[in-house]
């Protein structure tokens, strides 16, 4: 039986993968060039399911690429450009060595370069595909624009990144797309909604820079190269959708473009058409969408009509960007940076953002607030009461808008207050301890206690309800009117909630035994979380009580 036997590793997964070194040799590129090419084209290594088969019996850890991907790489025209560049470097080095300066100049003038446009078009055939991938590009460009302009990475790249980021911010300001802001210890997270896509990006602080040594700068530079190209094209298209000229001029201060921004915003508002329901849509959905849209538009005009002045010590760019996004007028001291339109002494300023414990000269008809007010207002989608953010006041905690609490999870009381505010209730006197009145303290105490108590009561009742629903499988319990919230509540809200609870109970009754068993398991888990949430709330209350007691003691000692 001659050579017709099947040999091992000649077909199947062993032939679908190729190691990195073999791929490199097939393409005749150096390792750095190969990595750069893979990054530019978006070809990533794969981990095969059965490593032993692919590795021909050994389990040594190796990097594998799909053979089809590498074959696709062979047709790439920029591979030729890499080789030309290698030749160029060799010639340049020779000319330098022989001290032929005219040759050096001539070679430098004819340096080979490549364009990435066709790669971007190939990777993102439509504009929406590109928009989905812009998160990464945004974060990289913002990161590079904060680098110092020393020779470590090309200064041109940094300048280009800066230009692109400013253009993007201008677009967001013009289209009023910003939705969420979160100030973290790492940097500032923004979220915007552009053409239906939710885009999150991270902006580092300007003043933080220790360059870590274990980061491969060449890799990051290659990524940035690709991302700047992608970003530029996306910017162009976005500007086209707003009928703005690209590239825009004089954007360095985000102030000179204000006039144009305001003008275009007004134009857009005038073009609101009546919306007719599409075929087959319920009226309810239409109403819901309309309501959402109205809310959105109300949110977009959050700071409209207000005039802000930023003091020296606040992060100017970030605050200017956010405030402009919501329609406010911003200015700062002229000596800081170009673009400050009005001065401190302007009488029409409504709010001044200060971060110091106190300030010398105080004008009467303006509020002096800390910067967290802006961020919290944006996240709460309404103008929060300014009193909590005065100078010298301990700020409420800055909550993350990216967290979505599910039923029964622990919700910090600040968030509850916020939600209550949003719903339109007014809680009486939310001031923190005034050193003047003790009565106020006690009132506040009682209210907080009340709130927490009612919260716990509600949670317990929910638990009982569900447990009741489980045991009384057959009976239909009559509806009970339960006191849900303190203060005046719209009946409508309560009725809605009751209806929902009824429906839930019916559904539970109609389940089969098996499904019920699973449902019980789930409920048990959920109850556990609610119990823990209650415990945490109790802890929090205890903590606050003790702190208040301490403060009272201190006051007593003083007096």
């Amino acid at each position, binding site marked *: 039986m001659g050579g017709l036997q099947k040999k091992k590793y000649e077909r199947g997964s062993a032939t679908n993968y190729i190691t990195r070194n073999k791929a490199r040799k097939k393409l005749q590129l150096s390792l750095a060039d190969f*990595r750069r090419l893979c*990054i530019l084209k978006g070809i*990533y290594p794969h*981990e095969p399911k059965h490593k032993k088969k692919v590795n021909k019996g050994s389990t040594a850890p*190796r*990097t594998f690429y*799909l053979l089809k991907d590498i074959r*696709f790489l062979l047709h790439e025209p920029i591979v030729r450009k890499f080789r030309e560049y290698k030749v160029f470097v060799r010639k340049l080095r020779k000319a330098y060595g022989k001290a032929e300066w005219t040759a050096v100049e001539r070679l*430098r*003038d004819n340096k080979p370069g490549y*364009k990435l446009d066709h790669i*971007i078009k*190939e*990777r993102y055939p439509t*504009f929406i595909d590109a928009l989905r991938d812009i*998160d*990464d590009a945004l*974060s990289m460009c913002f*990161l590079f624009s904060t680098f110092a302009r020393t020779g470590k990475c*090309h200064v*041109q*790249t940094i300048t*280009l990144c800066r230009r692109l980021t400013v253009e993007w911010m201008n677009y967001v300001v013009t289209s009023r797309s910003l939705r969420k802001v*979160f*100030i*973290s*210890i*790492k*940097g500032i997270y923004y979220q915007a909604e552009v053409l239906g896509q939710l885009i*999150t990006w*991270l902006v*580092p*602080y300007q*003043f933080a820079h*220790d360059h*870590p040594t274990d*980061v491969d700068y060449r890799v*990051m530079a290659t*990524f940035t190269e690709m991302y*700047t*190209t992608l970003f*530029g094209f996306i910017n*162009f*298209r976005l500007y086209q959708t707003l009928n703005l000229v*690209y*590239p825009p001029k004089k954007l360095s201060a985000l102030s000179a473009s204000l006039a144009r921004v305001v003008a275009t915003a007004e134009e857009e508002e005038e073009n609101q058409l009546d919306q007719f329901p599409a075929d087959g849509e319920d009226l309810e959905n239409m109403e819901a969408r309309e309501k959402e849209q109205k809310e959105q538009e109300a949110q977009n005009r959050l700071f409209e009509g207000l005039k802000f002045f930023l003091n020296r010590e606040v*992060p100017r760019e970030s605050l200017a960007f956010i405030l402009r996004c919501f329609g406010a007028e911003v200015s700062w001291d002229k000596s800081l940076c170009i673009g400050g339109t009005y001065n401190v002494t302007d009488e029409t300023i409504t709010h001044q953002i200060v971060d*110091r414990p106190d300030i010398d000269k105080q004008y009467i008809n303006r509020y002096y607030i*800390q910067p967290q007010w802006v961020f919290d207002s944006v996240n709460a989608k309404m103008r929060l009461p300014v009193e909590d953010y005065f100078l010298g006041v301990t*700020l409420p*905690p*800055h*909550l*993350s808008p*990216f*967290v979505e609490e599910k039923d029964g999870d622990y919700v*910090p009381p*600040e968030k509850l207050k916020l939600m209550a505010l949003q719903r339109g209730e007014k809680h009486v006197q939310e001031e923190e301890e005034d050193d003047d009145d003790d009565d106020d303290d006690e009132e506040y105490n009682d209210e907080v206690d009340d709130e927490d108590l009612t919260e716990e009561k509600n949670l317990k009742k929910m638990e009982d309800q569900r447990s009741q629903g489980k045991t009384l499988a057959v009976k239909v319990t009559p509806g009970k009117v339960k006191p849900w919230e303190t203060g005046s509540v719209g009946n409508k809200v309560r009725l809605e909630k009751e209806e929902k609870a009824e429906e839930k109970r019916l559904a539970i009754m109609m389940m089969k035994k098996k499904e019920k068993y699973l449902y019980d398991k789930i409920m048990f888990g959920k109850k556990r979380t609610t119990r823990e949430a209650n415990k945490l709330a109790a802890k*929090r209350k205890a*903590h606050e009580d003790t702190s208040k007691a301490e403060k009272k003691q201190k006051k007593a000692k003083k007096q």
Partner: protein
Amino acid sequence: MAAVKRLKRVAALQPGFISFKSSAESDDLNSGRRKRVNKNKKKNWNKHSDIQDVEEFLDDVRLQERATGGLISEKPDDSLFFVDIGEQKKSVLPEVQERKKGKKSKSRPLRIDLILQHDSLVPPPKDVLAYQQPNAKKLRRIAENAEKLAAMGVLPRRQKRLLNRRPATKTSKAKTAANNFPDRPYYDLWGGEAKETADPYYLEQTGKRRVKRPEKLNAKPSILPAVEVIAPGGSYNPDFFSHQALLLEAHEVEVTRERAELRIERQLAVKREDTATEETVFQELVEGLVEEEEEEEDDVVSIRGGLQQEKKTEKERKRERADKIKSQQKQAARVFTDKKQQLFQLRSIQATLKRREQRTRERVAQRKANQEAEKSMPRRLGRLKFQAQDLEIQLSDEIPGSLRTLKPEGSVLKDRFKSMQKRNMIEPRERAKFKRRHKVKYVEKRAFREIT
């Protein structure tokens, strides 16, 4: 030979020349023997003419001209003679102090310069050729005409073209075409232009058609989002409990790390039982010295039948055969009864089957859950494993009160780098170590070697 003779004769004929031979004789001989020379022939002009006096005179004239710039006889009396009045009193003037510089004063010219100077008063002749210009008249005429025209404003064609030419702006083509040029122009990439202008088959055959990108490459390598927002405890002014939760997470990480370290230490630790006690030490020293009674072991293992009996008898063989048949029959009967009984065991069989199926289903679900979990884990690509970043947290006493006093934690560059590794876009790598090709040799310098 003839020339030599001629020269000698010429020399002898010069007046005042004293020859070896006696004068009378030479005179007589010469005067008598002198050959008659035809002085009319050109050939004889040089040989037999005596121009010594003329030459002397001319030399004298030339010397006078060189030394004094002209014939002395033609010079005025004043330049040649002066009236000697006598010594004049030296005027009492402040003498200039002699230079203190010594012999090598700078005012003195160099000797070589003195040597190379022209020391004759005869001026060098004018080089006429230097002033000669062919077509001088014509050229002059042309230049005058051009001046006249230029004065009127008419310029020759060449000058007009030079003036019209723009100054050469040196725009480096390479720089503007580079990828990271700051003012790089962008256009509408998704503009929707029809690129396929020619026949697709033609394009493919001539290698001009772009190869289509395989569909699999458009899939993202990981399901994780590009930017992961930090937990709410990472806010610059966090809520108490979320901050505690984050601290707890970090605490857990540290605890696991410590436990791993402790585990390694425990594995390497020496067991207390292995330490040498006095007894064991004594035994080791004493081994082999004392003869102990060796206990004999009864290791007679009786191998039944095999070695002793070699051949089976007929009886045995028959018995074996019968046994085999019987056992086979028994087995068949048992199988038959089992099958019959299974009919009554249906319920329990069903129960076992159900249990088995449930187990397989559970396992399938577990495997699927594992696979899903693996999708969000970073894959192992390459030699190094993925090292997750440390959680960025600030301790309770580091939390700032305000944005101004905030000290940023962690580096976004590192965060992006790690995020890309986590999403399987790049493989984890370490910095390449510096490996020496040849071992380093240390040699003492010769001077030191002599000292030590």
